[in-house]
């Protein structure tokens, strides 16, 4: 029998509708896989087997009754990043602060997934409050990269990317503030998409940096990501920054791209993000090969300068901490979450301070303090204010670039997966993992990472980043799908299937 965990979401959905396999069987296969490998991968913080099987059963009943599927992904399992609020299911955000919190409401993304008949297997590990690039900042311990268990799966959404690469789920939800979908996608050889800011509702995502946070689809193929994108995307009145426009037609674009022709497409290589200090040779080699492939598909390749991108990282590390210092103020031991130091006449103020000290990890505290500093009177203009101006300059760089090209490309991250523990003592070196992903975040434009083979120097996955103008996700999906087909053809099969097995027999 086919290993159901190795199939794409599109394939699984089709087989479920054709009654070749039931959603319960598909779900159970993934639950079994989780039981088998997750003690080594640690992608999940919480598995809700009963809920998942109930949801699967409901889909099977629909199929049996001959009802129209709720969506093209009905019955397909999904791994949800633990930053998305789920009613009745623990939502910890990787933090001790919310260890036992069971939300009384659903995020809009959650509601849309459930309405689409998608089966939520459980909640995935992440850097605490989505701050980090390795999942090592999770209070619950790190996630391991399925390509090499001694390496990080990226972050903050390392649980979601690892779950895909370990075949624990064919679909996952991530959130991306400065690269937390794309960078984990790159280092695990999976597809990760950050939609246009405002393209997917933020209602019910535990906020890190409000002006940057975006939820997005993660999958092993471009088409699967597109299918999921159309399920979760679109206007939501509960999020005032949500754009009142239809979801871009990304599924059609991916299908168009799969024909493999990019004639007439103009692709700009961002020279400011394609070399220099900190870039691994193997990453650059993979990137240049990918660009050659795109050229081979008929695309016109030009070099593009974005002179202000180099200020992206510093601007990001002022804006995101500033917003997080305010967003995380609500975790104060009064209404929900951890409370320590109560009793013995302790005051509310003391309990708040003691709880926040105990409940937040080092990186979260560090960012709260940077943000508190950057917003305080006397420093606001020099830090937060100036960073917001840099944002304008980066937006202008992007706007001007898109007058001459359809999309921009760069490596997703300067290096392949680093070793666990390698960067934990040096915050700045950790921050560099987001170097290439931050500009699109600051500009609010969509960007995705699609696997571009393995780096020749360490045989680890590399990601190709494709950035498009706001609401033009269709362009990047088309190009990514075309590239994916060409890549697999050249490599003789899907890259993800080359992932090493670590003592787990493939059936």
């Amino acid at each position: 029998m086919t290993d159901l965990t190795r199939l794409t979401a599109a394939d699984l959905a089709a087989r479920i509708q054709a009654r070749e396999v039931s959603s319960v069987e598909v779900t159970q296969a993934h639950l079994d896989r989780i039981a088998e490998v997750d003690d080594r991968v640690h992608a999940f913080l919480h598995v809700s087997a009963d809920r998942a099987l109930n949801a699967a059963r409901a889909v099977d009943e629909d199929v049996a009754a001959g009802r129209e599927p709720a969506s093209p992904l009905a019955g397909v399992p999904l791994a949800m990043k633990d930053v998305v609020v789920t009613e009745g299911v623990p939502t910890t955000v990787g933090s001790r602060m919310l260890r036992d919190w069971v939300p009384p409401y659903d995020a809009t993304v959650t509601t849309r997934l459930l309405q689409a008949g998608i089966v939520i297997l459980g909640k995935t590990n992440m850097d605490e409050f989505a701050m980090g690039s390795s999942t090592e900042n999770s209070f619950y311990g790190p996630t391991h990269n399925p390509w090499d268990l001694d390496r990080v799966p990226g972050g903050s959404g390392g649980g979601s990317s690892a779950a895909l690469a370990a075949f624990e789920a064919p679909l996952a939800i991530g959130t991306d503030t400065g690269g937390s979908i794309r960078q984990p996608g790159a280092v695990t050889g999976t597809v990760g998409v950050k939609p246009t800011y405002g393209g997917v509702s933020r209602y019910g995502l535990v906020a890190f940096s409000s002006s940057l946070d975006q939820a997005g689809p993660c999958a092993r193929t471009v088409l699967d990501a597109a299918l999921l994108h159309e399920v979760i995307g679109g206007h939501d009145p509960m999020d005032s920054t949500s754009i009142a426009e239809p979801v871009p037609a990304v599924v059609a674009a991916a299908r168009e791209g799969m024909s493999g022709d990019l004639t007439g497409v103009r692709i700009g290589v961002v020279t400011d993000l394609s070399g220099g200090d900190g870039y691994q040779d193997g990453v650059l080699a993979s990137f240049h090969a990918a660009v050659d492939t795109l050229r081979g598909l008929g695309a016109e390749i030009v070099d593009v300068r974005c002179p202000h991108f180099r200020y992206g990282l510093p601007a990001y590390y002022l804006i995101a901490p500033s917003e997080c210092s305010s967003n995380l103020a609500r975790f104060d031991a009064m209404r929900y979450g951890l409370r320590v130091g109560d009793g013995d006449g302790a005051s509310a103020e003391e309990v708040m301070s003691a709880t926040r000290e105990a409940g937040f990890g080092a990186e979260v505290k560090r960012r709260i303090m940077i943000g508190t500093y950057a917003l305080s009177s006397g420093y606001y203009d020099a830090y937060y204010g100036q960073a917001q101006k840099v944002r304008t300059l980066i937006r202008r760089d992007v706007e001007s670039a898109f007058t001459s090209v359809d999309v921009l490309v760069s490596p997703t991250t300067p290096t392949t997966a680093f070793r666990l523990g390698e960067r934990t003592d040096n915050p700045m070196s950790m921050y560099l993992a987001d170097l290439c992903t931050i500009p699109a975040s600051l500009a609010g434009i969509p960007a995705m990472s699609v696997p571009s083979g393995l780096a020749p120097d360490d045989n680890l996955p590399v990601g190709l980043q494709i950035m498009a103008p706001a609401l033009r996700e269709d362009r990047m999906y088309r190009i990514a799908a075309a590239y994916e087909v060409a890549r697999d053809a050249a490599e003789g099969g899907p890259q993800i299937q080359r992932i090493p097995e670590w003592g787990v027999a493939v059936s």
Partner: protein
Amino acid sequence: MPNISRAEVAHLASLARLAVTEDELTLFAGQLDVILTSVASVGEVAADDIPPTTHAVPLVNVFREDAARPCLTQQQALSGAPAAEDGRFRVPRILGEAS
């Protein structure tokens, strides 16, 4: 340009309600210094005439209709409370006055 002292870190921690330890004061003073120095390059860009971007997607006038929506039940509201009494959240004694 930044030179963050332990005292400044202590002040920031108190504004942020973090009961940091002595060891952390030292650690954070050093790390904040490094981070703030390296992000200070945002100041290099001459940007006097550049408007700040607070929203990546420029929208205005997004309003909700003044129509009631269902609330949580009292039980749901208090479901996560570390302590509750008489349908209210129970919190330790409050020292300061509201600002």
